[in-house]
């Protein structure tokens, strides 16, 4: 294979980013321009296209802030203020990160435990499994306030209620994948263990646990992204106590579109980093066990 520049991952990504930025500028011009024209017409002022084009990237409440506006906002709230200041996006990212991580860990543990139960106990399998699925059809934002209030009534405040909501979203992919993974052991290997008269525990630790690992890791990547979404959602009903979610909301109250976009990008960035870290852990751990695909 000739390794021309166009087969390089970075080249493709860069082209896409450039493409997106260009489209973004165009869309901003169109959307904000239309809004600007409406405003001017309402004020019964004359306008020209050049005038609109030149002002589209400066209007006060843009429908779509231009990339450089968002970048400026990001720069301002990340680099221009002290990290522990409430105006620092890093500070809010930290708050969200806390409940994300706690929720992720709780969710992963819960997910694994449920899966282990389902795989080892037929009663649990037939009774619990349909309800695990049904649980995910309940809109979390609807019951998030209730969870927060009930936990608050039980004197649990701070990160914990938020982590519980994260956990609710993140346990599901882990359970589903782990059930599949724990069952994915080769029939032949299962029988091999049977000829050795292995106990359930030996079967689990010497076989099932390993065949489940690839499933576990790919589901952990989904779960940590879900945990982040949960943490952000949970910041709405816990009151504006900081975090990317409340940045999103307050940005929304006060019509600070740039702030919304900055928080959004930050959340996506945080999510990507978290997924990347899980992927890294996956590669290290799977390569230790000599995985062919690592």
């Amino acid at each position, binding site marked *: 294979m000739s390794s021309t520049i166009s087969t390089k991952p970075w080249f493709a990504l860069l082209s896409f980013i450039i493409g997106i930025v260009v489209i973004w500028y165009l869309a901003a011009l169109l959307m904000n321009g239309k809004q600007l024209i409406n405003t001017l017409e309402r004020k019964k002022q004359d306008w020209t296209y050049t005038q609109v084009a030149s002002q589209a990237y400066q209007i006060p409440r843009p429908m779509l802030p231009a990339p450089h506006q968002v970048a400026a906002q990001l720069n301002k709230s990340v680099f221009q203020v002290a990290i522990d200041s409430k105006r620092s996006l890093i500070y809010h990212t930290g708050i969200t990160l806390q409940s994300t991580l706690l929720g992720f860990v709780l969710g992963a543990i819960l997910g694994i435990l449920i899966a282990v139960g389902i795989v080892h106990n037929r009663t649990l399998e037939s009774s619990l499994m349909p309800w695990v699925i049904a649980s995910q059809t309940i809109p979390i934002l609807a019951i998030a306030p209730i969870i927060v209030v009930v936990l608050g009534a039980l004197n649990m405040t701070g990160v914990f209620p938020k982590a519980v909501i994260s956990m609710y979203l993140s346990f599901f992919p882990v359970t589903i994948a782990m059930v599949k993974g724990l069952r994915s052991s080769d029939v032949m290997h299962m029988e091999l263990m049977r000829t050795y008269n292995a106990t359930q525990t030996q079967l689990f630790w010497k076989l099932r646990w390993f065949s489940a690992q690839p499933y576990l890791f790919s589901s952990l990547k989904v779960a940590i992204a879900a945990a982040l979404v949960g943490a952000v959602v949970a910041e709405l009903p816990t009151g504006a106590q900081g975090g990317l979610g409340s940045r999103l909301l307050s940005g929304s109250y006060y019509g600070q579109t740039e702030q919304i976009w900055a928080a959004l990008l930050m959340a996506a960035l945080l999510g990507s980093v978290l997924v990347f870290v899980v992927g890294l852990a996956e590669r290290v751990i799977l390569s230790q066990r*000599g995985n062919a695909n690592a």
Partner: protein
Amino acid sequence: MLAVHESEDFEQLNVLRSSRRQMIGIEDLSLVFPSADGDVHALSHINLSIKQGDFVSFIGPSGCGKTTLLRVIADLEKQTEGNILVDGTSPEDARLNRLYGYVFQAPALLPWRSIYDNCALPMEISGRSGPHQAEQIDKYLKMVGLQDFHNKYPWQLSGGMQQRASIARALCIEPELLLMDEPFGALDEITRDHMNMELLQIWQQTQKTVVFVTHSIAEAVLLSTHIVVMSPRPGRIAKIIQSPLPRVKTLALRDDERFHALAGEIRDALAQDHAID
């Protein structure tokens, strides 16, 4: 004629082996796999007695129930009718006592364990991983020609090498009874010859009992004390042939008259009621 031959066989066997204890006794055993479009009679009225120290080969066309019969002995499958005793107990007790070692048709190595660790697995599980575990594993890996591959992972080995590793794994625990399902199917002839001789040597030295499934008539003749010819639909025993060859064998035997005669006899038995389907 077949009936006569069979009964002759049985008599002979009884005389010959009266001094040794029975390792496997199967009486009128049948096994039916229920299935949506009609039951499959995988085994039908099997009678078989295998004495300690025998080397018995099962041979027969694809789908005649060789694997199934081996699996019944190993307590991986339960008969629908009839009785079976393994070393005087039920197959389940034999399994729980870790009486036998089983070599599957495919290598069945755990991909996350090195070759060495794969061999150590049965010992770990039975809690027998004492100090001489390493010695034992070394010995058998060397026997199958894998002494330089201790730390490789299964997927770094060719199919034939994997199969040999799985044989070493079964041998390591030195079981009383070896159940082997086409263990050498994936090997080229030269390697196969080598493995045959090694297996014969182990068997001669240790007086183990071996039950062996193969597709190769030559292999069956070379290795076995008794050859069980099976036929399909329903899976049953067509003929049991006792080998006239000496227990101590060499590859040179292949040019022996008796070798060819025996091979011919097996081929004939196989050809009877064999139809391609």
